[in-house]
């Protein structure tokens, strides 16, 4: 007989068992009668020698192998009945579990899709990120000639691809639009193993000089701008005034290394005018695929050998380029979010653990009420294991229900998380529920069920028959809340303290960050990003003409106070830096000075309210005909003129093909945080846009931010600004119109995301700890009614009773807080890199959180304590 056969013959088996034992008893009885016993005595003797028939049956069922299945069905039926009988408890438990499990599932699906799942490329473990190593620990990009040398001279790579920021004005087909894109080695897609969804991806041949200009679109752009028509392949697009042929559309889950990028054109390095300029900008980032069997270390050594050869060959240009570092591509993609995601998963896991502890507490209270039921079952022959099995089945049923509802919640939770997530979150398009997530949820539900089911089951089945049966239904238990429940509450308080401290540290970091002076005043500034089509604005004269036309129009808009222009806006993510030397200052042998490079119009500093420290601002005096001048940042001044004044000193800046040119320093302005609020200010050189070298004019036409300081809400001016731009040139798109405050907010968005989530989890933990403590204390008060009654009869006052109950609660909380502080000291260290301006063991935060928890504990104890003082001694004494 197979097990399922037996299962479905359960009834028959039961009947046969009954029949078999009956036969035995009858035969034995008649034998005893034959021996001379009276029929009654014979029957009694026969029963005695067989043992209790129910117990024998139970043992026989045990002896049959499929026992557990039958039991399981029985337990499930019984469990379901018990849960239906207590709909309130069931609903609360399922809901709380669903929230806990749903939260975990949602966060885990982020962790799973972003951190655990491999990148959606062919053999992703071979893919590496390539960066140049210099004396400092940073990761540096490459110049075009360096990249070509690494590509041609390495022995260890199956392929290497470089990419760089590239943006384009799309001017045909409807409104002109500014698109973010990139130039990328045309072999990149084959190297990664990316298939197009329409047409083809770029092919290595596209990089060959003299090819037709081609472009591939991202899936998002194809959907958004081209209505997902497949006919887009083969169509011609005008980008920056030049015609390109669309050859294909990339798949939806493909993301460019520059996340906002929506289209890509071939890098075509061998046709690039910069291919021979060793001193050109390090603007290329690179990724590579290792040859099969080559380790990362071997490839690193191979590429570093190339770097060293180049250093010997070009001692000046490559002086600082010591070698090459390789890191796994996946690691690099998720680097900024790895720690935060794990911390969040840990936090939400702790919340679930606390949910389990609370449910266990609740179930313990119920278990006390079910003491008699257990005693009766035990008397009827149930083993302790069997009882525990039954109770755990009940809690598992509850947990699975919670898990099911939680999974539904998780789908919404994922959407919510993605909606709140910062734009820089990588692989967001891939986030979803897969089998691993489903498995995780199921495992979590089962684990939760066992965790919160086992303790009460253990407790409830610790019955001695007589005691359990004798007790009236009032619930068992001694006078004090028992050990298990106290332990649960203490651990809950400790856990919630850890989460609260974590959240507290993030809150404090965030405040510190918001208090950081970015170096400019962000309020009431509108920033409009423009880029002038290269074809129509090939030189400085054309760019200046555009400026001269647009500026008065914007200045005359009502509400506009000051208008300024800059080539790279702080916190916009746009980078630009150049090498420079200082006249009359001998450079150290390995020294290569670099500074951030900004072309600015008159009034730029005033528009952003960047303070002038010394000298003068750049203004109308500085024209193409006058001496070339520069304003430098305070940081730069302090570094190279620690004592004297830089005013009047001259620098050679290298921003053109003809070689370094001389500029005179006429002013010093305050430092500006360019990359992020938590970073150090970088040295800046500001040059008047009117004196831009013809070779550098591309810096300005390609990228210019117009800043409008306004007297009104800046966003109310957007439409008017757009209109004025169109009036000057219909071909110039102004797609990005944002306030400076929005740039500030975006720069702290990842922190805000972590902060928000961790605070929610910590809040949940606080509520759970409070209700847990409340539950245990109220239950203790209910159990101690008699004792309290006696105390009051003997003259205890309400105050004494209050003190008694609250004292007990606070003692528990105190232990929890102490344990939590120790745990927090150990654990907050891991989140060090998420903090800013506050130490991981900030005593103030620790103290404040401990006080907060003690206060909540006091509150949680006060209510039941109040109830205890209302105990009427007479009723309490009589009720037993």
């Amino acid at each position: 007989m197979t097990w399922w056969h037996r299962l479905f013959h359960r009834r028959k088996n039961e009947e046969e068992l009954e029949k078999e034992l009956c036969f035995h008893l009858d035969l034995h009885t008649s034998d005893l009668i034959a021996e001379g016993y009276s029929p009654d005595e014979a029957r009694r003797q026969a029963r005695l020698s067989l043992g209790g028939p129910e117990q024998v049956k139970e043992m026989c069922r045990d002896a049959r192998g499929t026992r557990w299945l039958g039991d399981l069905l029985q337990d499930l039926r019984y469990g379901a009945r018990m849960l239906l009988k207590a709909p309130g408890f069931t609903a609360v438990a399922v809901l709380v579990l669903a929230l806990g499990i749903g939260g975990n599932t949602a966060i885990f699906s982020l962790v799973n899709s972003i951190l655990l799942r491999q990148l959606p490329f062919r053999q992703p473990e071979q893919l590496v990120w390539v960066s140049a190593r210099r004396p400092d620990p940073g990761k540096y990009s490459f110049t075009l000639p360096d990249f070509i040398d690494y590509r041609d001279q390495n022995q260890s790579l199956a392929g290497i691809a470089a990419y760089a920021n590239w943006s384009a004005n799309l001017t045909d087909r409807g409104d002109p639009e500014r698109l973010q894109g990139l130039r990328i080695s045309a072999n990149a897609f084959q190297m990664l193993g990316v298939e197009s969804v329409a047409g083809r991806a770029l092919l290595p041949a596209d990089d060959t000089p003299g090819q037709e200009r081609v472009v591939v679109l991202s899936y998002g752009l194809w959907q958004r701008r081209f209505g997902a028509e497949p006919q887009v392949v083969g169509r011609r697009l005008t980008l920056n005034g030049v015609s390109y042929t669309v050859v294909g559309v990339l798949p939806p889950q493909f993301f460019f290394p520059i996340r906002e990028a929506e289209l890509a054109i071939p890098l075509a390095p061998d046709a690039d005018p910069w291919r021979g300029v060793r001193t050109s900008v390090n603007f290329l980032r690179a990724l590579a695929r290792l040859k099969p069997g080559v380790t990362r270390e071997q490839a690193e050594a191979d590429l570093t050998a190339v770097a060293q050869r180049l250093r010997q060959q070009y001692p000046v240009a490559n002086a600082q380029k010591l070698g090459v570092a390789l890191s796994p591509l996946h690691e690099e993609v998720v680097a900024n979010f790895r720690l935060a995601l794990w911390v969040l998963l840990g936090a939400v896991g702790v919340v679930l653990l606390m949910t389990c502890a609370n449910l266990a507490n609740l179930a313990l209270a119920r278990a006390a009420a079910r003491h008699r039921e257990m005693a009766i079952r035990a008397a009827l022959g149930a083993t302790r294991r069997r009882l525990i099995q039954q109770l755990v089945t009940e809690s598992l049923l509850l947990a699975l229900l919670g898990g099911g509802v939680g999974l539904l919640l998780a789908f919404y939770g994922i959407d919510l998380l993605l909606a709140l997530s910062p734009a820089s979150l990588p692989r967001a398009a891939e986030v979803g529920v897969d089998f691993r997530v489903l498995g995780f949820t199921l495992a979590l539900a089962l684990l939760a069920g066992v965790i919160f089911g086992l303790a009460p089951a253990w407790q409830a089945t610790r019955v001695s028959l007589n005691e359990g049966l004798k007790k009236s239904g009032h619930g068992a238990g001694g006078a004090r809340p028992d050990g298990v429940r106290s332990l649960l509450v203490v651990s809950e308080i400790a856990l919630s303290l850890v989460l609260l401290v974590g959240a507290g540290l993030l809150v404090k970091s965030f405040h510190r960050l918001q208090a950081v002076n970015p170096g400019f005043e962000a309020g009431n500034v509108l920033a409009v990003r423009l880029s002038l089509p290269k074809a129509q604005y090939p030189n400085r004269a054309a760019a200046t003409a555009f400026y001269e036309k647009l500026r008065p129009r914007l200045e005359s808009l009502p509400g506009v106070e000051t208008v300024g222009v800059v080539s790279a806006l702080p916190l916009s993510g746009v980078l630009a830096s150049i090498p420079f030397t200082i006249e009359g200052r001998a450079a150290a042998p390995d020294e290569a000075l670099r500074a951030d490079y900004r072309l600015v119009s008159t009034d730029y500093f005033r528009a952003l309210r960047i303070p002038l420290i010394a000298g003068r601002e750049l203004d109308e005096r500085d024209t193409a005909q006058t001496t070339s001048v520069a304003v430098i940042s305070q940081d730069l001044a302090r570094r190279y003129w620690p004592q004297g004044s830089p005013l009047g000193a001259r620098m050679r800046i290298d921003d053109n093909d003809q070689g370094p040119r001389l500029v005179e320093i006429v002013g010093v302005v305050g430092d500006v945080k360019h990359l992020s609020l938590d970073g150090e200010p970088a040295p800046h050189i500001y040059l008047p846009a009117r004196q831009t070298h013809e070779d550098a004019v591309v810096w300005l036409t390609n990228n210019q931010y117009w800043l409008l300081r306004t007297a009104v809400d800046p966003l109310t001016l957007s439409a008017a600004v757009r209109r004025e731009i169109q009036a000057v040139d219909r071909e110039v798109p102004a797609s990005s119109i944002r306030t400076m405050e929005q740039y500030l907010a975006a720069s702290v968005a990842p922190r805000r995301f972590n902060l928000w989530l961790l605070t929610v989890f910590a809040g949940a933990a606080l509520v759970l700890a409070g209700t847990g403590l409340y539950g245990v204390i109220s239950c203790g008060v209910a159990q101690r009614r008699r004792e309290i009654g006696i105390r009051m009869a003997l003259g205890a006052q309400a105050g004494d009773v209050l003190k008694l109950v609250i004292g007990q609660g606070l003692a528990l909380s105190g232990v929890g807080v102490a344990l939590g502080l120790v745990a927090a000291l150990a654990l907050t260290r891991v989140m060090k890199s998420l903090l800013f301006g506050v130490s991981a063991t900030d005593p103030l935060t620790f103290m404040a959180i401990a006080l907060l928890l003690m206060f909540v504990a006091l509150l949680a104890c006060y209510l039941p304590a109040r109830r205890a003082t209302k105990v009427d001694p007479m009723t309490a004494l009589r009720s037993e």
Partner: protein
Amino acid sequence: MTPAKSDLPQGTLDLLILKVVALGPVHGYAIAQRLQQVSRGVVQVPQGSLYPALHRLENRGLLAADWKATETGREAKFYRLTRKGRAQLETEAAGWQRLTEAVSLVLNMSEGGAK
């Protein structure tokens, strides 16, 4: 519930049952009586542990059972040995034989023999 207490060494009950059943199909009560008689009352087999043992052996495929009428016309569950059960009986019996011989050898050892 009290666990089955038997003076029988662990596992011996199964061996005895197999031996009794090997003599021919037999029902539970008869097995109990046969054990009692054959062991001359020395071995107390608590009847409560007899049936669980029977069911366990049936479950392991060492015994098979059929419902048949007794002489009195009542239906009873008759156990018989399966081929697997017979093999098991032989190995266990041989093992028991070896064990008892070894034990009695040790017990009969003279004081001097130990040197």
